[in-house]
């Protein structure tokens, strides 16, 4: 197995998960991951093996996403489509507690769908920041490094994105 095959095996699923959160649908996520991998290979001479390939690929993935979105204009994302088997009770993650009532599960799924929809209506920059910081739980510094932006730009966008989310969800205090 070549190094490239090993990288694909190791980081393919992780990259796909990030791409899905960004694009909101499977077809675009597939395209994005594929383009990011090809870009990574094209720029292989810039890769320093002393560093984590996953992090490097991640940076490329987010930059490809942002550049691609800019190229396509300010088109709004479609909300995240339901994941496979998501409509089944208890499907998806995290697993519901055994004592959770069907009403509570339905409410949780509804909240999750609303959040997915609101996330899909954010701008690309806001969405990228929110995915990194609030969905993946990365620090502002890590997000800034991945996006190649100043930390202040990331924190400002996260601040704004969160409030836009609350506004769209109708829970603004």
């Amino acid at each position, binding site marked *: 197995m070549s190094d490239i095959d090993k990288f694909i095996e190791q980081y*393919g699923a992780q990259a796909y998960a990030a791409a899905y959160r960004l694009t909101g649908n499977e077809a675009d996520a597939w395209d994005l*991951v594929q383009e990011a991998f090809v870009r990574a290979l094209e720029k292989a001479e810039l890769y320093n093996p002393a560093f984590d390939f996953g992090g490097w690929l991640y940076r490329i993935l987010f930059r490809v996403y942002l550049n691609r979105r800019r190229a396509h204009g300010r088109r709004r994302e479609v909300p995240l489509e339901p994941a496979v088997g998501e409509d089944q009770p208890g499907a998806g993650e995290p697993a519901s507690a055994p004592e959770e009532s069907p009403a509570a599960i339905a409410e949780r799924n509804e909240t999750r769908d609303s959040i997915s929809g609101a996330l899909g209506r954010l701008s690309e920059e806001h969405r990228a920041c929110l995915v990194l910081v609030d*969905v993946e739980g990365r620090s502002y510094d890590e997000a800034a490094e991945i996006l190649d932006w100043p930390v202040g730009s990331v924190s400002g966008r996260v601040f704004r994105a969160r409030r836009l989310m609350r506004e769209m969800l109708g829970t603004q205090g």
Partner: protein
Amino acid sequence: MICSLIRNLPDLYVTGRLAAFEARWVKSHITSCAKCAAEAAAWRSLFEGLRSMPVPPAPAGLKAALKAAAAAAALKEETPEPESDGGSLRDTAPSLAFAFGFAVLFVSVSASMFGPGVSNQSGGADAPAIGVSQFISSNSVSGVKP
């Protein structure tokens, strides 16, 4: 009063991004303020929702497609691109255009420096030049001697 001061802090409090003293301040306030407690709860709900967003497993064919794309990219990199007929002309065209533009600019600047210039108001370039004393006498106000 305090509510307005901590208005922008509950989300940072919930995500644990406040300094210790700020976190203590917010915590002590939300225990006594129902409105801010609700605000903090709303933020907590949003973050829980974001963290629990499901991601479908990677499609079965994704890894195979990535490997195929990687192989195609590697093959493309190895194969040298055939040089087209107009390749050399395309390479030199920007330099030629720049040189031509520079030559035009040079000629026009030279012409303006050494050319006849702007004609005077008394009758064009062919009109005889007027001396200083003639000019003063012709423009003097009556009663004032030059």
